[in-house]
């Protein structure tokens, strides 16, 4: 069955060839492996693939401070010893080393997310995927946690040009602090992050008590979890909270950060999620039929990252993938089973039922606060999925549209009905 959504997938062959340095857990090569695996499963036959433009410094400065962007642009491994104070100031050097082609790397992954947002804005696709993006820790004026440029913030800012409200969901094992911080004062972006919290776990923020400030009060949601959460409790909590959030907040678009370090067996993570559990969240979000921007994020056991994002690409394409990985150049990385499934996590689940329900109650209570105080025009701008938005005149004339794409657009009119039905069928447990 052909997917009814138009998917734009972003990839640049250069992104995987950078190297953070020996012993650094972040390995962009995982992006090569992901892309390779996606193609091994022939998923490219169901989507369009784009090479992102390299974001210009001025685009990056839409969020980041100009001095920081300028510095990132200028610094190289050979010159870094001349800028020790700046390195410290911008938090570069340890978690975030300066390596060859650093800025180009940032330009590519940020460009991917920005392009993805623009394609969504121009209704050129329904779902955009940029596995290279999702670097959610980067701050306005400094790097943090392997992240230099916060492509998510840039993508959301782009979506805000078109949508009154954007929902950001983060299932990385680490708190999405950079995005939360960027939008801490606004009610135009709601950030929802599910993450490990406590025990000095990086980055240290993400307590349930962080709910936003000023106009943004109640528009930041944190779901702090403990070690070893399993599929069942995670997906249950995720579905309950996210469905309530979407119902209450009525976002115009959703940005989903799919950090794969929440999977069992991650080098830095401490959850027990299987790929099924992880991708179930993706599938759940997809079913809202809102414009959806999907990015990568963390993920430090690179085969599992490739597995997970390949499965999730399949989920977004409504394609279930067989467990046996087809022969390909990287097949040996997937030994010994050569399968998509990963072993279950063995970490003790420290999230008691009562703990999870306390969290849930707290989050839902905070959500109720916005129901009664709709500070943004909640109803004036109907969410996109109610708008029949296929006016060809609005299309960018530069963009050549082949017959096939046009056909698909026409088909979509009647598909919306189905889509609405899907909403009703949502499993809200």
């Amino acid at each position, binding site marked *: 069955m052909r997917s009814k959504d138009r998917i734009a997938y972003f990839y640049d062959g250069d992104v995987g060839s*950078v190297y953070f340095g020996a012993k650094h857990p972040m390995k962009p090569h995982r992006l090569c492996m992901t892309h390779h695996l996606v193609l091994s499963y022939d998923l490219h036959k169901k989507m369009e693939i784009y090479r992102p433009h390299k974001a210009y410094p001025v685009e990056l400065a839409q*969020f980041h401070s100009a001095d920081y962007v300028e510095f990132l642009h200028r610094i190289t491994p050979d010159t870094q010893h001349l800028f020790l104070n700046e390195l410290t100031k911008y938090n570069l050097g340890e978690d975030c080393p300066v390596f060859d082609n650093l800025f180009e790397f940032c330009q590519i992954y940020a460009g991917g997310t920005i392009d993805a947002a623009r394609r969504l804005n121009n209704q050129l696709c329904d779902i955009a995927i940029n596995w290279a993006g999702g670097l959610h820790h980067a*701050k306005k004026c400094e790097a943090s946690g392997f992240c230099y440029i916060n492509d998510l913030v840039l993508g959301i800012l782009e979506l805000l040009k078109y949508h009154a409200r954007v929902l950001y969901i983060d299932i990385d094992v*680490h708190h999405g602090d950079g995005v939360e911080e960027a939008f801490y004062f606004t009610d135009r972006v709601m950030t929802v992050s599910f993450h490990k919290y406590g025990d000095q776990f990086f980055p240290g923020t993400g307590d349930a008590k962080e709910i936003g400030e000023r106009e943004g009060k109640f528009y930041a949601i944190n779901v702090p979890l403990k070690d070893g959460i399993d599929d069942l409790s995670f997906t249950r909590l995720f579905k309950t909270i996210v469905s309530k959030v979407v119902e209450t907040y009525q976002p115009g678009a959703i940005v989903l950060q799919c950090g794969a370090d929440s999977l069992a067996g991650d080098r*830095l993570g401490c959850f027990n999620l299987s790929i099924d559990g992880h991708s179930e969240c993706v599938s759940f979000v997809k079913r809202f039929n809102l414009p959806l921007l999907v990015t990568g994020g963390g993920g430090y056991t690179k085969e599992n990252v490739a597995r997970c994002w390949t499965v999730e690409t399949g989920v977004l394409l409504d394609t279930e993938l067989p467990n046996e990985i087809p022969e390909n*150049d990287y*097949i040996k990385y997937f030994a*010994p089973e050569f399968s998509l499934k990963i072993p279950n996590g063995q970490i003790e689940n420290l999230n008691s039922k009562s703990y999870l329900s306390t969290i849930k109650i707290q989050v839902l209570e905070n959500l109720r606060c916005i129901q009664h105080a709709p500070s943004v025009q909640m109803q004036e701008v109907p969410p996109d999925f109610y708008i029949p938005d296929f006016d060809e005149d609005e299309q960018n004339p530069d963009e050549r549209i082949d017959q096939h794409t046009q056909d698909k657009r026409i088909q979509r009119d009647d598909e919306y009905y189905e889509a609405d039905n899907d909403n009703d069928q949502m499993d809200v447990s």
Partner: protein
Amino acid sequence: MEQWSTFSNGPSLDSLGVETVGEFPGNGCCLGEDHVDNGAQHGKLTQKCLFYQLFPLYLKDNCSQAGPRPLLVLVDGQQLDLYKLFSLVKDRGGYAEVSKNRLWGSVTKELGLNLEVYSPVKLVYAKYLNDFERWLKKIFEEKILKNGNHGCDWGLKWLPLDIEKEFRGLLCLNPKNKADDELFKSKSNKKKKKTDLANHKNGNNLLDTKDQNNKSEDVQHIEGDNNEKSCNGIKDNPATLGAECADKEYSPRKRKRKRDAFSGMISWMKDIAKHPLVPLTQPIPKPSKWKEYKGRDFFGQFLKARHILSLRTHEEPNSGLSSLQKQKMHPAMYEDHVALGRHATGKSRCNERLPFSVKSWSCSICNPCSHNGNTLAGSHNKGAEKCPHEKTSETVDVLTEKAMAESSGDEFLEKQVSVGPRFQAEIPEWTGVVSESDSKWLGTRVWSLKHGTEPETDIGRGRQEKCSCEHQGSVACVRLHIAENRVKLKLELGSEFYHWGFDGMGEEVSLQWTTKEEKRFKDIMRSNVPSKIKYFWNNGFKYFANKTRRHLVSYYFNVFLIQLRTYQNRATPKNIDSDDEVEFGYLSKGFGMEAIKGPGDDFLECSKSEQCINFE
């Protein structure tokens, strides 16, 4: 908290002491003349002199070792001038200010040290000088209490600007001050005396504990900030901070990276040690057997710590002992390879379950030291008798730091969301009018859908169960299918095959390398010397004139790691750790290296582990 760092800091600092050039000669004034007569101004000189006078006093008072701790600290092979460090930090507003404003780099620079060692410098400050500062302050406060108006108006604040004045003042008051010191000491000893007496040598660790708890917040900073040691091996046995520095270069200040499996095991043991009353599934060896574990992964030390804690937790030593005997634990579980192999299991124990452990710890250690030491000192003493002194001290040190990190962690240092124009994004008001998204840059379509060419069912195929090969599943068969798929993809993708770098994927990359080059690359990687490998990545062109970094990275992931992995798939199919760096550590222990270097280096001979398993 970073597990390994807490483990390594204590011992490494202690060994610092051992490594020192010489001991400070008693309470005498001044360091060697060469330090002083360098044309420094008189004020500085006296300050320095005073500093070196007071500091041993402080050490003596607070560390209560038989003699003062050695004063000459080596960082990066150079002697660290504690006074200079002290004054530099004071000039910048103190420890907290320096940390906050990230000035450690400049402090280190001014000390004439390599910038890379700033974290050890910070550590030294926090471990010794920070507390010294408090101690000084306390003395001044006491003096004010005692002497009322002394003529000098000592501010209660120890402002950086006052430092010179205070030091000068201190100097002229020196004899009196010393008397005050004595008073202070005897006074504080009232609190500590019984513990001291009862514990003899072991006592100093407890006192350390107390002192360090005073500054737990600061220590927490260091530990959280910069003392991760990501290298995985006790074998490194960090004898000097200098040696550690090489590793520290990789250590994230904000620590997103995590401990490896080995430290996971360490922390698991710590966990065991700290929760003496939590029953375990396997029996703990009896105390009499402990010495068998001596030197083996510190297991013995953890056992002892556990034992002591268990005794302490029970006010009556006997009940503690009996409960200990009921506990169960199997020693084999802690052996290296098991921990490495059971990565996930190890990690599950890494993260401390906070509230419980903090409480149990603080009541068993901190309180006895500071308040009611006399009640519990006896029990501690009992435990101490059973343990050789050095071992206990080390263990307790480790545990102390750990506990401090925890207790300070959640209680004192809740990280807040930063707020202000340097943090939040600027978001335009929603006007209800859709502003045009820049349509110029939408990405370049490099792959579009071709409909009708491919039957839907072919999309998302997995590995074929059956093929027409003569020997299904054989090496040749697998290689054939990989090649087939590659050619198929190449035809489909056309030029994108190259743009996406598929031509540079897989072991074919090795075809662009000569055998000699390959050997060279592998030799460097196998050397497993972090500094060497780091140097290599940064200066690869010196090793391979015609290769860019990109070539090296490509070779690393497409050939080297895959071959390593192939070996692992064959040798230890159940224990594969995808973390390549750990793999090096694993292999460097000798096991498997021979196999990797095997005849002809022909890894393709066994490219799929399944069949190997079958053969075995």
